[in-house]
């Protein structure tokens, strides 16, 4: 128990000192997770809307696959991405393995099903009269898209925050395709590394930042939920 208190004390000290390894890992985590979620949003929102709007062969299969993929273990995604990016893999020529883009690549697949599923569900729960009214007014494709994004703003923000929370705290992908090198170390991989080295205080400091990130995401989700239920 004393080790834990000592670790916590030192962790706070490291955070207050803005220890370079801690700050590096925190900034890298924020950068790769944000970029992965941003790309997943750009790809996932149109897919989710398409799955909601159109009836086509295989739609149910795609929806179920997307839902199931939300629960994929990160280590499995990491392993698949490793196979794709390794020297002998189909994307080996890109030489991305053990780089930040490799982690972004992997986390993209972690975030994508979350964005697709939430967008699809949000569209399906939208009042059909909204879409009918847009049709009635002969709104252009662009105007309809803008209106839909505005109407689905809250659930989409929640999806983005959830995906970010998941990416920022995952270990499997960053460890397998990032390699836990100094240049690719994220908060999760640093926590694992420092703990295995016996550097509990550093591990706890990293863990505390992750906890802080998770709390910020949870608070943001709660805030948007509140805004949705009690608009100003």
């Amino acid at each position, binding site marked *: 128990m004393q080790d834990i208190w000592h670790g916590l004390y030192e962790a706070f000290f490291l955070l207050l000192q803005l220890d370079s390894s801690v700050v590096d890992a925190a900034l890298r985590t924020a950068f790769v997770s944000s970029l992965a979620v941003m790309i997943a949003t750009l790809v996932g929102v149109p897919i989710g809307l398409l799955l909601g709007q159109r009836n086509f062969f295989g739609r149910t299969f795609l929806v179920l696959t997307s839902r199931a993929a939300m629960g994929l273990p990160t280590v499995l995604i990491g392993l698949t991405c490793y196979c794709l990016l390794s020297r002998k893999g189909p994307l080996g020529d890109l030489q991305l393995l053990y780089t930040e883009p490799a982690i972004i690549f992997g986390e993209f697949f972690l975030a994508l099903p979350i964005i697709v599923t939430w967008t699809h569900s949000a569209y399906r729960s939208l009042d059909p009269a909204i879409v009918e009214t847009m049709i009635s007014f002969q709104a252009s494709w662009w105007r309809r898209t803008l209106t839909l994004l*505005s109407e689905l703003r809250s659930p989409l923000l929640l999806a983005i925050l959830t995906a970010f929370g998941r990416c920022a705290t995952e270990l499997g992908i960053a460890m397998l395709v990032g390699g836990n090198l100094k240049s690719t170390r994220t908060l999760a991989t640093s926590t694992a590394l420092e703990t295995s080295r016996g550097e509990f205080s550093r591990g706890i400091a990293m863990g505390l930042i992750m906890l802080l990130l998770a709390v910020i995401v949870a608070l943001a989700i709660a805030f948007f939920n509140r805004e949705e239920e009690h608009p100003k």
Partner: protein
Amino acid sequence: MTSPLLQINHLKVNRQDTIICNVEEFEIQPRERVAVIGPNGSGKTTLLRVIAQLESSYSGDILIDPALSQSIYVHQTPVMFRGTVLFNASYGLICQGVPPQDRETVAMTALETLGIASLAHRSCRQLSGGEKRRVAIARAAIVKPALLLLDEPFADIDQTGSDAICELLFSLTETAIVVASPQPVPHQLDCRKFEI
């Protein structure tokens, strides 16, 4: 005699083996005002939705004049987009690409007619049912469609509001208007009555 804007023959709409709308013959002339009167569940809403081409599963013939450029259906429960009353009222004009200054002027005039100009900058989520209905009617009337389909436009509306709606609708001289209502509509509208 001018050709009708829309002509319906032997319309039947089935839902789970129950006929929810049965209309033998119905037609609308350009600029005509028709009140579709009938009790709850008689198929008034379904008829309006079929005319607005929002229903696809029905049997019967529907002939639509190719000159019918736009028909707008206002739902029984008014639909508001996220945003202010002014944004909602000008939505149709936004879709038509009318410049912001012009559409604001037109929208404000309609809101004034309906007695809700003071609500222009308020969020639509803060409106009462009757206020939402007035905004939805203003939004539809502003674009001056060839055919305006109003589903129970006088529900939740007080006498002043009802008079204001009649005034706005009466000003649409080039629009054919179909009003669905369980009760007789105000006489100011001067509608042909069609019982369903």
